[in-house]
């Protein structure tokens, strides 16, 4: 039991019941079920519909030290019109950048429905004083970010300071104001599925809008079993509180086939209600081109080569 801090938090936090004991996760069963759901064969019209849905849920991401305004503008253009000349292909859900590049992205995306997400709270390690993290978040929101992707302090989590992790999430949520908050658990660093489940419960009870697997800087990043554990946490949280929390696997999702696998996991665990960009996102940088190649293949009948698609 890890009761959430009493008092001092945002109003909605007070309305939530404290998290119950984290249910134990059956590693073998989770991995088998996640793998089984990836074996479904999705073809033709269904595949096209699934891939278009995946594009509309994509957070096109660039989080490199070498990011420049030019690169971010190019990425934004791609997020607006992934395949120029083909209007049946939707725009992406969001562009995800570092805070200083938020104004560039905001300007480049003016007039479109693509949102701007920014990482904050001393991404990717999260090892800065809380005041710095809160300031980081507030500045990113001021600069125009619609969504904030925060990282939890894995050191604190692993040393059992769950209370501190939950408090930080709650305070960052408060600092976000109107912006949506996604909490990155960095599942590659917190070890077991039990820990993933515990961190998911912790984040949801602390008031996050989304839980997200990874920063993309650590391997392994998103995997189907980890995603399944988190989706089941979201389902149980929904049954307990009636609140719908979003899910974002990120990192290591490179192929159209993987993207469809994640959509199947969501559909089978949470149902159609979650198959919307408001509640499910795919964080990726190289995935979009592979999805576009598959769509073009379905339309033309010819397998596609990477030379005919813009480089990210």
């Amino acid at each position, binding site marked *: 039991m890890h009761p959430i801090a009493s008092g001092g938090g945002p109003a909605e936090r007070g309305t939530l019941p404290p998290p119950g004991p984290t249910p134990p996760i059956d590693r073998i069963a989770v991995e088998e079920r996640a793998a089984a759901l990836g074996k479904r064969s999705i073809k033709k019209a269904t595949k096209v519909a699934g891939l278009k849905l995946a594009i509309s849920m994509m957070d096109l991401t660039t989080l490199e030290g070498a990011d420049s305004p030019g690169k971010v503008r190019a990425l934004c253009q791609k997020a607006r019109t992934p395949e120029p000349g083909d209007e049946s292909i939707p725009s992406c859900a969001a562009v995800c950048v570092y805070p200083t590049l938020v104004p560039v992205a905001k300007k480049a995306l003016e007039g479109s429905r693509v949102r701007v997400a920014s990482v904050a709270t001393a991404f990717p390690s999260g090892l800065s004083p809380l005041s710095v993290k809160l300031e980081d978040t507030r500045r990113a929101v001021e600069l125009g970010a619609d969504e904030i992707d925060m990282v939890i302090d894995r050191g604190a989590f692993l040393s059992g300071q769950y209370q501190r992790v939950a408090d930080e999430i709650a305070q960052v949520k408060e600092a976000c104001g109107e912006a949506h908050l996604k909490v990155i658990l960095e599942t590659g660093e917190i070890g077991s599925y039990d820990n993933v489940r515990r961190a998911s419960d912790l984040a949801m009870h602390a008031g996050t809008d989304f839980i997200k697997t990874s920063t993309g800087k650590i391997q392994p990043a998103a995997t189907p079993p980890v995603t399944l554990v988190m989706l089941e946490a979201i389902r149980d949280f929904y049954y307990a509180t009636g609140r719908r929390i979003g899910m974002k696997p990120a990192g290591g999702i490179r192929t159209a086939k993987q993207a469809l696998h994640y959509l199947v996991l969501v559909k089978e665990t949470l149902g159609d209600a979650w198959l919307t960009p408001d509640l499910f996102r795919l964080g990726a940088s190289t995935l979009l081109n592979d999805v576009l190649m598959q769509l073009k293949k379905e339309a033309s009948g*010819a397998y596609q*080569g990477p030379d005919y698609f813009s480089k990210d």
Partner: protein
Amino acid sequence: MSERRKTGAERRRPGADLEPGSEPADPLARLAVKKTWKMYVGGAFVRSESGRYLVTADGVDNYPWASRKDGRDAVTAAQAAQKGWAGKTAYNRGQILYRLGEVMEGRRAELALSLERAGESQPEREVDAAIDRAISFAGWSDKYQSLFASSNPVAGPHFGFSVTDPMGVVVIAAPDRPALLGLVGSICPVIVSGNVAVVVVSEVDPITPLILAECLATSDLPGGVVNLLTGKRAEVLPHLAKHMGVRALDLWDLTGDDAVKLEVAAADNVKRVTRRSLELEAWYDETRGGSPGNIERFLETKTVWHPMGA
């Protein structure tokens, strides 16, 4: 066919006891272990993703029946290998092709036996020629540039250089005969310059190419540089001809409508298509089957102007 089964080579072949209709001579004799023939894709030996098999003409061996998805997988593997292979020094590519010759030398008997089974009348001669061909193209690796690149006289104070670049993924439809020499003689000139190859091998003798695959796999050749597919050419080639990631088609002994259809499909991204045929003896000829002109067919020429004195 039944006549061929009675050759000495047939009786020596492992697994001969398993042939239908023949009784094991000694009931206590060890059962021969039969090999599962697999295609060579991305440096691994794989079955067809479709799970399908074909049976050799003599009814003894099963071999994979490639689907279009196997073709796509092979191109993907080749694309992944291309940069690394082209990035190796010419000298190193030569060393690796030379080692292919060395490994084939160690498997002379097996290769010859397989050719004999397929009905080749002079199997040893063909194996020797195939090994020599690999060694010969290995030698060309750091020499063909001197033939095909040039310093061009230009009107003005500039240097003009034409240098050669590999094209990328080349699809080879290997000739039926000579099964081994034709295969080595079509693969080596393609890859020696840094290209990568997806080879749809002969339908007449698919087993010898799969033995060659084992030689390729043990000769330090990076996985994916050569990919061998077995099955029905008419099923796989049209999809490879349309594939936008393929740069060239090297079609041996294909004629008529089939070849024309492939050329039309290849036109979408302006692939280079060569349709060729050599008589059997010409393959043994160093100036024809072994000609460095076979390397030049799959090179791009890049011409650069450079100001003098700068």
